[in-house]
Structures are given as structure tokens and as C-alpha cells.
């Protein structure tokens, strides 16, 4: 008798654990021939709120981890992804990518991780300043993370889009809750497994699968979220997001039609977009 394949159960990723959605709901992901690939968790508002709690809990200690440490952890994520390259290529091919495209996407994702791992202990020096004030004070400005960021990840670029959005956010000391690609969510949960074996503290990245239509409002309205990142070109979604973000003046960052394959889609400015500038004064006259 032919051996029966063991299918993978895809769950969601909250606070370093892989629970099922509390809602008990699911949605199907099928391949191009309509064959069922997976029953994904259809995450709810409550899942999101639980994830915000975990992200907030993790934020302060992640922020105060040394830049060197953060860089090494991200490098470790790249190592783990490299080791599981073939799995990710196969998973992307299941959902319709050619072998060549899938390989490119995974390799670029690994390289992007390395790129931002390297920025960890450098971006601060690019954007900080000592300000030559006219009075007798020493005055300097530094960047600090905004805090907790909610992320509506790229629909089209399921792995590279995800990596390109969240890595600059976390390398700057933020924590995040991500809604994965709606069309192709499986790879995001496999990526969560990579994160979970890479010394990344629990709660720094939380990944939900589900529907934008249901969740976008909550991603933008939660009062304990400091900023929101959006990938896409859907005007109504963007407007909704901007509107509800006003309540606590979330910082809104829109990636409209960004092609994540391009070199210009990576830069320290993607880190800076989720940083606040803090200015500190001290007298320098005795």
C-alpha cells in the first residue's frame, strides 16, 4: 500500500505559541486546480486583541535588547530560512509559483533578512544627531521605536512581502501583529515556525491568517497599537485605515504598489518610518 502523506495543520502564531483561532472558524486555500491545500484559521478580533497583549508585553525588553543582539537574532532567522529553503520553495510552488520564481522569492527573503540584520547596529548612527544649540546645553536626538505596530501584509508577495515589511519594523525595536497574505497564507505560518526556532523572543512577531475585510478595522482602531503598516492599493481599505487610526493618532504607513523584488524596496528609511525622534537636553555649564 502506498504511504499516506501527513498533512500539515496550519494554525496562527501568538506570543510564541501556535494556537487555533479562538473563533473556531476556518477558510480554505486551494491550488490552481481547486484541490484543497489547507484549512487556514479565520482569525477573529479576539485573536488580534490577544496578539496585541503579547506584542505589548514583549516590546519593552525587545527594545532594550542590544542592537548587536537584535542583529544576530535576525541573522539567525536567515540561517533557519536558508536551512528550510526547499520546504518554502515547495510551499510557494503549491500555490502556483514557478520553481524559478519560488526559488527567487525565498532567496531574496533570506538576503533581505541579512540586509536588515546588518542595519541593526548602524541605522541609529545614520539618523541621530547632535544639535548645536545656541545655549549652554548638550542636545542630541536619537531614534526610538514607536512601540506596537499592526501590519497588513502584502497579498501578492506572500513571503518576500512579509519579510520586507516586518523585518525593518522589528529591527528598530518594535513588536508587531501581522495579517498575512489573504490569497496565500500558508507560507506565513511556516515562516512563524522559522521565527520560533531563531531565538526571537516570544511576542515580537505575531502572525494571523484571515480576511482583510474583517480585520482591517481592528488593526487600525486598537488603542494600544502605535502604528499601522499597509501593503496594497485598495483605496477603500486605505481610507478606512486612515480614518480609524485618527482616534489615537496612529502613525499610518502605506506601501502602495511596492514591488518588493526591487533593490530600492529595502533601505534604512524603511526602519526610520517606524521610529520616533527623541531629543534630549542637558546643561553643559557648571
Amino acid at each position, binding site marked *: 500500500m502506498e504511504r499516506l502523506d501527513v498533512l500539515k495543520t496550519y494554525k496562527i502564531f501568538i506570543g510564541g505559541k501556535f494556537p487555533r483561532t479562538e473563533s473556531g472558524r476556518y477558510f480554505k486555500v486551494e491550488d490552481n486546480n481547486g484541490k484543497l491545500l489547507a484549512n487556514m484559521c479565520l482569525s477573529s478580533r479576539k485573536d488580534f486583541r490577544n496578539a496585541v497583549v503579547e506584542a505589548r508585553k514583549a516590546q519593552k525588553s525587545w527594545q532594550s535588547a542590544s542592537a548587536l543582539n537584535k542583529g544576530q537574532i535576525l541573522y539567525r532567522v536567515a540561517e533557519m530560512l536558508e536551512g528550510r529553503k526547499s520546504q518554502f520553495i515547495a510551499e510557494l510552488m503549491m500555490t502556483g509559483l514557478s520553481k524559478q520564481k519560488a526559488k527567487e522569492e525565498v532567496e531574496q527573503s533570506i538576503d533581505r533578512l541579512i540586509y536588515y540584520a546588518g542595519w541593526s547596529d548602524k541605522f541609529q548612527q545614520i539618523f541621530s544627531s547632535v544639535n548645536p544649540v545656541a545655549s549652554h546645553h548638550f542636545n542630541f*536626538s536619537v531614534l526610538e521605536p514607536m512601540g506596537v505596530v499592526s501590519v497588513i501584509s502584502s497579498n501578492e508577495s506572500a513571503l518576500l512581502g512579509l519579510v520586507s515589511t516586518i523585518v525593518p519594523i522589528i529591527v528598530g525595536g518594535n513588536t508587531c501583529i501581522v495579517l498575512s497574505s489573504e490569497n496565500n497564507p500558508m507560507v506565513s505560518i511556516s515562516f512563524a515556525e522559522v521565527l520560533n526556532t531563531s531565538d526571537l523572543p516570544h511576542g515580537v512577531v505575531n502572525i494571523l491568517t484571515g480576511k482583510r475585510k474583517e480585520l482591517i478595522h481592528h488593526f487600525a482602531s486598537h488603542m494600544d497599537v502605535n502604528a499601522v503598516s499597509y501593503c496594497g492599493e485598495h483605496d477603500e481599505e486605505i481610507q478606512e485605515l486612515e*480614518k480609524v487610526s485618527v482616534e489615537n493618532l496612529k502613525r499610518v504607513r502605506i506601501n502602495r504598489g511596492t514591488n518588493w523584488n526591487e533593490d530600492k524596496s529595502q533601505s534604512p528609511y524603511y526602519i526610520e518610518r517606524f521610529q520616533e525622534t527623541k531629543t*534630549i537636553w*542637558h*546643561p553643559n555649564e557648571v
Partner: protein
Amino acid sequence: MSDTSQTSSWSYASAPENTDHIVLKEQYDLFINGEFIKPDSKKYFKSINPATGEVIASISEANKKDVDLAVASARKAFTSWSKIEPKERAKYIFRIARMIQERAKEFAIIESIDGGKPIRESRDVDIPLAASHFFYYAGWADKLEYAFPNKNPKPLGVAGQIIPWNFPLLMAAWKIAPAIACGNTVVLKPAETTSLTALKLAEVIQESGLPKGVVNIVTGAGKTGSEIVNHPDLDKIAFTGSTQVGKLIQNSIVGTQKKSTLELGGKGANIIFEDAAIDQAVEGIINAIFFNQGHVCCAGSRLFVQESVAEIVIDKLKDRMSSLIVGDPLDKNTDIGAINSKEQLDTINKYIKVGREEGGEIYQPTCNLPSNGNWCPPTLFLNVSQSHTIVQEEIFGPVLAIQTFRTIDEVIEKANNTPFGLSAGVWTEKGAKIFKLTQELNAGVVWANTYNKFDSTSPFGGYKESGFGREGGLHGLIAYLNVE
């Protein structure tokens, strides 16, 4: 508690600033396309001296047509202003800085008459900082590519700018200088109670030969402001004011291509540790809350005193408060001037009432307040906690709420437990403590062993609901540029 009666034995001879050479028109028109023109609305409102209640001048009320005209002239001017050689653009702005300096005394006196702030502050803080802001940003005009390497910075277009009444000329400078240095043109609206120095600035701008339409100044109240915010031909809205209005503005530009920066309210925590230099700290606390009658978004309005020194700090504070001179803004001895408007005085008094009703213990020194005008004595509240209204909400007046604490972690938690995040202060002689606190306080500006200091090179702006964007320094440029 100190005896306040002893202060009456010390009195200063009055030292009023001479106002003879100040020339004010009876009526001020709108500054559009380089000319002063009568408002289409034909309406004027009165600008009142808050220290006397007297009418100083009539100010135009701009309506939709006036705003349209201002935006159209700014749009037209943008075409050439954004293209002239940056070094020439710089020279115009340097010239404005110099002309403000030349007329500094006049600006200072008008600022104090119109807004009620002590002449010492207008003279030594507001006007010099306004001039230096133009001087600073002038120099950036031809150096922008060094601020944003490989980003090809380009101006946004036309900016609508709305400013508050607490630092009228200074806020105008904070808005106009970086905008025009980056090659934008602007339509600026000063607050309705303090339009005069902005209109005097319009005179300077006219005399400086700045191309017509680069800076347009329209006066009016909230309605005029909303005409600006909702104008379809603006690329940018820059606002300084209350968090409430900031949110309304942000709401109304959703779905448009307008960019925004908001510099909003605050409830600054000022933290004094037992190892602080107590006398310096007390002086710093006084400056943090009573500077400019407390009409300061970054005012240190929540004081946290470590328990072991609470008694001595509070005694010294009361003692110092009783020696503050409240009165004529034009008197060089005055520490606390007039409250900017009757409306604001009502707001402050409402908060003082709420503070009492919620069980706060109030202290106000005995002061002889003038019979006319808007006045509020320096005020502190004891016996309040995090849940009290006067600890949570921005009062924008000379009212200090005092709480005590035991440990560093406790005070960081309390200080950060607010929707605001504009400013904070730390007083201690221990270096490591300073750095721990300045790192962990969620605020855009942290003053250590000092407070309420400003500089054109120093980025200013808030976290959380205190708004977004920075003004001042290199960081202030990005608010007026598109980068690749």
C-alpha cells in the same frame, strides 16, 4: 509652610517697557500675493489686550473666497519659487531673519500687548528664537541633498499652516521658515486672539522683497481654519494646537493626498529625585509650569517628587511661588503675565474648580491682581492621583498637579501612563539615572536638569496623541519635502 506675608516687604519699583515708538494700525487687512487687501467678507473682529481688556486693533476675518485667493496666489508663486536657485532662496530667508532682528524690540512689545506674555519672555525667548529659526532654515535651502542623501528631495507644493496663540511669532517662524526654505509656498493663519505679530511679519516679508505669493497670511478664527484644511488645492497641512482639533483636522484630510504634521497637546511629567540639586530643581519646576502663564504644550504640568524630599520641595515651591510677580506684561519685572483670553481664563478656572471638587488641596499665593484683564495666580494642587481630571487633562494654564513616588520604576510607569507624549523633565545629579529616565520616558523632548528650552537646531514634537512630525533641526525638513 512658608509665610507669604514676608514677601510684601519686598517690592520692585515698576519698570514698564516704553511703547511710544510702537505704531499699530487701527485695522489690519489680509496679506495675499504680497499686498494687504481688504477681506471679501468685509468683516473685522477685535484684537483685545488681555491685560487691560482694551481693543488694540481690528483684524480681518477671511472667508472661503479670501482663502481661495490666498491659495491661488501661493499656487502661482510655487511654480517660480520652487525653481529659483536654492542659494537665492536662502538669501531671501536670511534677509527676513535679519529684518526681524532689526525690529526685535517692536515685535517683542507687540507680542506682549497682544498676547499677555511677560516682556522678558517675548524679548529674550520668542523674538530671538523666531529670528534664529529663519536664519537656521535659510541656510538649508541650498543644502537639502546633504540632509537626504540619494533621496532627491523636492518641495511638496502649497502648505496650509495653522498656529496657536501661545507663541504667535515663534510658531509662525517654525511653520514658514522650513516650508519656504524647502521651496514650498504657504498660506498661514495665526490664532484669532494673536494675529498682530504675524501681520507685522507680513510687513517685514513685504519689505524683504520676497516674491509675491510665497507667503500669504490670512486671519480669522476656526471657520477660516477649516476653509484652509478643506481646501482641495493644498498639498500639506501643518497644525499646532489642541489634540482635539488636531484629530478633527486629521479626520477631514483622510482620503486626500494632503500630508500633515500635527504638534498637539501634552501633559509633561517633571520628575524630581531625592538626589537632585533641590534649589535648582525648584527653580526648574517653576519655569516648567509658569513660563508663559503655563500656555505651553510641553509645560511640566505633572510634578512627581520623590517621597523623601517631598516636604522640603513643596515648601520651597510655595515659597518661590509667593515671590512670583503677576501683572503688567510690559513690566520687565513681571514673571507671570495675563491669561491670553477670557475664554482661556474660564477654562483654567473650570479646571481649578474641578480640582477642588475632586478633593485636591489647592495652594495659591496671595497676589494683588489688576482689576481689569484676565489673570490667574500661580496654582498648585496636592493630594491628587493619576485618576484626577487635573492630572490627566491639559489645562494650558499656570496650574501644577503634584504627586509623590518611591521608586524609579513606579515613576516611569506613572509618567508614561498618559495618552500624550510630548515632553518630560528629570532632575537628579546621578548620570546613570538621567540616561535611564531619558531613555524610558515616552516623550519627544526630554529635559534633564533643565526645562522649557527651545532652539532652531533642536527637533521638537511628540509621541502618541501629542501629534507627529518634528519641527526644528534637520529632522524638521522632511515635513516639507517629498523624497524618493
